[in-house]
């Protein structure tokens, strides 16, 4: 792999590139799904190729190929240089990169059980057993389960002298029970919706989730939702479960702090951000108990945003994003760091695969744990709705106004968890929402959730991100607007 990358940067240099990095990636994936007692998807895939990024004539070019031959790699490098020269037709100044040291390193995330060595039939059996438990519940009309395993083996070489070899192993799984009755479709997912939980771990993650042990419960909840009380429209207090708070962080903190978005580079598709650079270290983003970091280091946990080096050869870092409520940091790269007065990238360039250009992406954007015990938080709450497990999410193209709905809710009255509530939803303005946070649960309730499906960029790239979160309470929130007539 390294030889192809070295050949690519040598060829690009000879063709006039002033900077080149090349990434050879070998990706292996296994996808399994089941539905109503039968195997649905059963696919193993592999893909190997090279992506070559160059600066020539002061502008960027990128080309990729899966033809790893002398002819293929040389032509791809030459094409990247030609594209850069075409880019220079519409440039105003030369691209400048913040300095970075060269690194020669090898890294692999720790895991206990290689999921590709676990027999497929054992993995299918877990899903089919969970499926059986869900369908044992009368009223469940659809039972689904899925597992995904991914191994990314990549070598990065750049003209500043870096040679970085990283191997990442990811695992993920989840189950869903759906119930159709009357004029309603209700569903419950475990451990999270839209694919379950995903992390930079081995098969031990799947074993720890205990899908089978939770299947009957979510089946029963899906059916019970039909007779639950409708979430009413009002302004009040909400408590968000950890996975829902993780997605709230993703949408209303993680995306607005992407510096490429702030600087207008995503204006046509993903949108821009309300967090213009004048707000850095001035905006009161949240209440004083809100502390958020973007942390790609393994010490933060085995999240989907954990690595040793980003795809620009910059080491993993921890950046304070919100410090005691104050907005303190963006996600940057070597090209944009200078726009916020920094002399170094904070290491967030990531690519989906060898055929995609690295772009600024979330790493693990997490809220630090608070001090509350979960039971104490419930006891301390007089009147609220506890909302859990995302059902839909939407936010405007500057990440100001959002609306979320969750699969399930419970009434909190006089410090006790009471009746189940169906179709819960809430909406608000990002900074008003985070400033209304008055309680966050402690480390023992904190989970590093994985979001495997974050889309950004043109052409579109899907990336996994991590979000550590614990249940938290918010006051004066608009509730129930999604179903208002």
């Amino acid at each position, binding site marked *: 792999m390294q030889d192809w990358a070295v050949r690519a940067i040598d060829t690009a240099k000879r063709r006039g590139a002033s900077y080149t990095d090349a990434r050879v990636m070998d990706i292996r994936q296994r996808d399994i799904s089941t*539905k109503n007692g039968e*195997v*649905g*998807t*059963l*696919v*193993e*895939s*592999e*893909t*190997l190729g090279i992506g070559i990024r160059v600066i020539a004539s002061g*502008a*960027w*070019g990128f080309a*990729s*190929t*899966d033809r790893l031959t002398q002819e*293929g790699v040389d*032509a*791809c490098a030459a*094409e*990247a240089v*030609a*594209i850069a020269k*075409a*880019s220079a*037709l*519409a*440039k*105003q100044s030369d691209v400048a990169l913040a300095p970075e040291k060269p690194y020669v390193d090898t890294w692999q995330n720790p895991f206990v059980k290689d999921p590709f060595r676990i*027999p*497929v039939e054992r993995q*299918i059996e877990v899903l089919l057993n969970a499926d059986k438990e869900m369908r044992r519940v009368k009223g469940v*009309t659809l039972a689904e389960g899925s597992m995904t395993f991914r191994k990314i083996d990549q070598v990065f070489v750049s003209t500043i002298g870096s040679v970085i070899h990283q191997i990442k192993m990811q695992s993920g799984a989840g189950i869903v029970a*759906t119930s159709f009755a009357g*004029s*309603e*479709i209700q569903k419950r997912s475990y451990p999270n919706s839209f694919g379950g939980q995903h992390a930079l771990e081995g098969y031990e993650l799947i074993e720890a989730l205990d899908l089978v042990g939770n299947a009957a419960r979510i089946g029963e909840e899906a059916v019970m939702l039909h007779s639950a009380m409708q979430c009413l429209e009002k302004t009040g207090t909400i408590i968000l479960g950890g996975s829902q708070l993780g997605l709230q962080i993703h949408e209303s903190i993680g995306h607005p702090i992407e510096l490429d978005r702030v600087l*207008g580079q*995503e*204006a*046509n*598709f993903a*949108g821009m951000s309300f967090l213009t650079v004048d707000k850095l270290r001035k905006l009161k983003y949240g209440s004083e108990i809100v502390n958020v970091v973007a942390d790609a280091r393994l010490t933060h946990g085995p999240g989907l945003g954990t690595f040793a080096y980003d795809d620009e050869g910059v080491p993993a870092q921890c950046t304070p994003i919100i410090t005691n409520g104050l907005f303190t940091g963006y996600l940057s790269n070597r090209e944009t760091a200078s726009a916020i007065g920094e002399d170094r990238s904070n290491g967030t360039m990531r690519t989906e695969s060898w*055929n*995609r*250009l690295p772009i600024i992406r979330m790493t693990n954007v997490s809220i630090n744990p608070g001090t509350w015990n979960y039971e104490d938080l419930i006891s301390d709450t007089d009147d609220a709705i506890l909302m859990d497990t995302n059902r*839909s999410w*939407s936010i*405007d*193209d*500057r990440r100001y*106004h959002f*609306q979320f*709905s969750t699969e399930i809710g419970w009434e909190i009255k006089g410090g006790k968890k009471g009746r189940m509530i169906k179709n819960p939803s809430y909406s608000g*303005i990002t900074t008003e929402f985070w400033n209304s946070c008055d309680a966050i649960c402690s480390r023992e309730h904190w989970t590093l959730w994985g979001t495997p499906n974050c889309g950004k960029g*043109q*052409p579109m790239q899907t990336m996994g991100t991590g979000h550590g979160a614990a249940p938290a309470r918010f006051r004066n929130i608009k509730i129930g607007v*999604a*179903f208002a007539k």
Partner: protein
Amino acid sequence: MKRATKKSISRRIRQAEAGAPALPLLTASELKSIAERILKLSNADETEVEIDVTTDALTRFANNIIHQNVAEQVLHISVRAVMDSRTARATTNKTDEESLRRVAAAAERLALHQPKNPGLLPMLGAQKIPKMDRFFADTAEAVPQERARAVTRVCKLAEKNKQTAAGIFSSGAMQTVLANSKGLFAHHEQTRSEFSVTILEPNSSGWAKANSPNIRDLDPDRLAERASGKAADSRQPRELPPGHYTTILEPSAVLDMVGFLFYDFAGTAVLDKRSCFNDRMGKKVFGENITLWDDVYHPFQLGAPYDGEGVPRQKVLLVDRGVPKNLVYSRATAKKMKAKPTGHGFGLPNEYGEAPTNLVFAGGDKSLDEMIRSTQRGILVTRLWYIREVDPYEKILTGMTRDATFLVEKGKVAGGIRNLRFNQSILKMLSNVEMLGPAVRAAGEESFEMVVPAMKIKDFHFSEMTKF
């Protein structure tokens, strides 16, 4: 594979330096030859091979400069094996003999590690598949300099108007073959091109987008002028209280809403009881003026004329004057539902069955101007954003307006308004359509392209407003 010589390498480099795709697409006969090699290597009871090869290039601009400019070549070889009433798939992008042997063996091994599926149908034999001509050499051979020149003109227009431009100009080509051990062989090739532009002012923006298999059909200058005009016309947006408004949706906005309906027309979705048409087939669900087909052969459509198993696609009437009439079916779903396959199945194995992906609305004859002139007070929407499903059965969708939303008063556009959030049932929306424009090939961001009209809708529900 033919061994590369120094001479052939330098020829390829010269071509790449001229901006042409680094290596040409493999031809149909080359893909067929790879497929035949795999079929010979396979020991499965039945074997199916799908091979796609694509070249794509995309020039991306923002702040009136090109900031990303990329090209890719991707080969995708996918092998499905059937072993004793069980099936599984393995994929690779490597074409050496050992990799082809390995991918065939992987599919066989995976297939054996699961329970038998008594409902698994035998693979199809040879099919009579219509030929579609959707490949344009000018598009396949487009070079980055050509895209850069168009982008430069667009950026200059923005600068002249004291505005900022962002967008993409892309082009590409693909070949695909589907073959199996029962004698099926299907081939399709097509090209694609797309131009999308957002023009920004300090407190407003405008947007326009188009795509076509033929790059010569695109007019980046005209699209940029339209986006520029919208940004200028929506300056200093005023606040409008949320509520129910007569709303005119341009085709892109209609597309992104109705795109959320496509899977509800799958036979499997109805079998699984997750379609909004459960218990509603044959009943009046939409207005009399809504008629909808799935039609891959429509001149504004794209796509292969066969499905994931090689069944030729049929034109299917999905909604007839407001009444959902027909679903689409893969072979397995058709058998379960006592229907005939319509050629809309996904490649096996999968849990979703099938879907119509070439939706075509009947449309009407009203122009956008006529819709505006006939509106006493309403809202004109250019584009919608971040649409998500809130209720799967009543089909309530939420999302935001974006990039030029206008107040219409007394038959005229009366200026820009701040962006609004909507929570709207699409079933109710398509029951409240007062006027329809001609159906056009529309491009959005939330749905695949389809042929839809602009619509004037009464009582469209905007629930909240954002800050810009």
